[in-house]
């Protein structure tokens, strides 16, 4: 089946034009500003108050019944190098050659519009009460798509287990249900990480920025990044240096939502397409079943 140069040109222009059109048209599903649930809780971590005592790491392990990860220390210490299958919360240190430094506490950010809950096939990761992104291993097949999509690379996998689960901070949801604080917030000696209502803590963060302008980088990280997160950060060094990337305000699932909505719109297009294809197949019935000579076959 040959194709003439003219036809080729037509095809290319057509495809290119379609691409242009698609790119030029703004997506129909505009990402609405993500609003937090009325009962949303939050953690506010102020890096200027953190002394790096790591009591929060010990408390997290205890509250979540996790074995401390000895990391490089051959059984001497709890010394994970990063979040992992045994570590839901970690304190890291950023140091500049000149001597300036900052600690940073990393754990799940409990995004307002998370990528992981959008990705998870059976909803093992779900945003529920108080906006906590919780995990249910009974619905998890260990596909690790959540790890692929999380902008903060939070969900970690129990690689060494024969029945591996995803491991990530869940705001100590059992303790929350009992009216207690998450382990880390309860134990922090300086109040560097505090827990409360999302609206309260966001206000508190802004109050601190206003009251002590020289003390902080003038931004509350997590207020708008990827649509907003329920863990807010204040620091005196650039957030990017602390491993908190400069993300835009669009929630991560926005692009996929556009694709899905445009293509799948309530499953009508797929069903319509199926009807069309079935009609085509019925027309070429004998060819499909391979019964007789193909009557509808056309020579090129």
């Amino acid at each position, binding site marked *: *089946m*040959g*194709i003439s140069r003219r036809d*080729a040109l037509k*095809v*290319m*222009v057509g*495809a*290119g034009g379609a*691409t242009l059109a*698609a*790119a*030029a048209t703004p997506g129909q599903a505009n990402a609405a500003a993500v609003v937090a649930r009325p009962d949303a809780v939050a953690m506010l971590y102020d890096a200027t108050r953190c002394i790096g005592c790591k009591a929060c790491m010990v408390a997290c392990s205890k509250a979540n019944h996790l074995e401390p990860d000895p990391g490089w220390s051959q059984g001497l210490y709890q010394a994970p190098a*990063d*979040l992992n299958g045994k570590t839901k919360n970690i304190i890291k240190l950023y140091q500049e050659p000149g001597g300036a430094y900052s600690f940073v506490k990393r754990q799940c950010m409990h995004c307002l519009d998370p*990528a992981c809950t*959008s*990705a*998870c096939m*059976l*909803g093992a990761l779900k945003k529920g009460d108080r906006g906590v992104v919780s995990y249910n291993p009974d*619905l998890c*097949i*260990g*596909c*690790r798509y959540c790890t*692929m*999509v999380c*902008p903060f*690379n939070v969900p970690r*996998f129990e*690689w*060494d287990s*024969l029945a*591996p*689960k995803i491991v990530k901070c869940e705001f100590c949801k059992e303790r929350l249900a009992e009216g207690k604080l998450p382990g880390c917030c309860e134990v922090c000696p300086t109040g560097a990480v505090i827990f409360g209502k999302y609206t309260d803590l966001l206000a508190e963060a802004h109050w601190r920025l206003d009251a002590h302008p020289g003390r902080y980088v003038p931004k509350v990280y997590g207020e708008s990044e990827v649509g907003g997160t329920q863990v807010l950060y204040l620091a005196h060094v650039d957030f990017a240096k602390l491993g908190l*990337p400069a*993300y*835009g305000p669009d929630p*991560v*699932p926005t*692009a*996929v939502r*556009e*694709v899905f909505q445009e*293509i799948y719109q309530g499953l009508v297009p797929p069903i319509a*397409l*199926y009807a069309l*294809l*079935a009609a085509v*197949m019925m027309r*070429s019935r004998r*060819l499909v*079943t391979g*019964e007789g000579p*193909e009557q*509808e*076959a*056309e020579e*090129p």
Partner: protein
Amino acid sequence: MTTAHAQPEAIRGVVFTRSVRLLSALAVIGGVLIVWRFLVGLGRATALTDGYPWGLWIAFDVVTGTALGCGGYAVALLVFVLNRGRYHPVLRPALVTSAFGYSIAAFSVMIDVGRPWLAWKIPVFFWHWNLRSVLLEVALCIMAYALVLWIELAPAFLERAQTSSVSVIRRLAEAWLPVLRKALPWVAALGLLLPTMHQSGLGTLLLLSGPRLHPLWNTIMLPLLFLTSCIAMGFGMVVIESALSARVLGRRPEIAMLAGLGGAMRPVVLVYLSIRIVDLIVRDQINDLFALDWFSVMSLIEFGLLFGALALLREERQRRDLGNLFRASMLLLLGGALYRFDVFLLAFQPGANWAYFPNVAEILITVGLVAAEIVGYVILINLFPILAGRPRSAVAR
């Protein structure tokens, strides 16, 4: 040149040639390693990490493997939607390759996930379905399509069963064949719908990695690019598989048909390249394309392979030269595979502190699965009426 086609028939030749024995050995090694993977866990068996949770098995076995298994889809599009009935004889062999390709892909998923014993919940627990999940759509469609492919092949098995010496089997075949034939158009329609959905879905998967996907590949056009490239790869796969089968079995390959497929590849690849290039221009990535870092170089190689394929398919004379057509198909498959590898393993950037390359076990398991697939293909075309029958001595000019 005649285009008369004989009905498909089983070859009933020697299955376990030296090559097939070698491939079987590779398959057995892969099998042993798969058992080992389940005994020691993913951490020890693979080089996967929290930075790169998806590796060779997803990028190749599932994503590229299903694209290579799009032969059935691509040929069916030609035959039924575009009414080019003369390609019908390659449909069944293409379906076999597709059936194996998708089955291996599904099997690879079961090896790759950490809790495969809960996988049955995916099709069954519909009240838990997260309808926003692309992966769910891909998983359900792949499961369904693998089933559809085997159903589409079922007439071949039942036709052989009709000649069985065991009367029970004969009667079962005779009872079921008409039922199957009646249902086939509806099933075949699914066989066109499902790949459209999930091949574009595979492209959409990494769209959710959003900020962590390199701009050279991060585009809303991902689903369309995956769809067009998979159709092209489907054609390429059919050419290679037909040419090799004909050669190995000592038959004359159907040059006209294969040349036609070569021609069919061209518009599809042109569409793909147009979308890709215009998209890069619109998103202002052309400078990055020539930045000559790793990302740029790999993108340019992708383009190079596909343009190279196009160059080899320009003229009718070139397309009728089977060797040249074979090489063009190889370039096409390489280009499409490289595109997929690039999206899943190169464009995906968890951070400079993470590194991934599959370890030996991952590679050998993949090799073993592919070898098993080939052996399965050989067994099937020998036992069942798959390939269009063509006597060894027939020499039509």
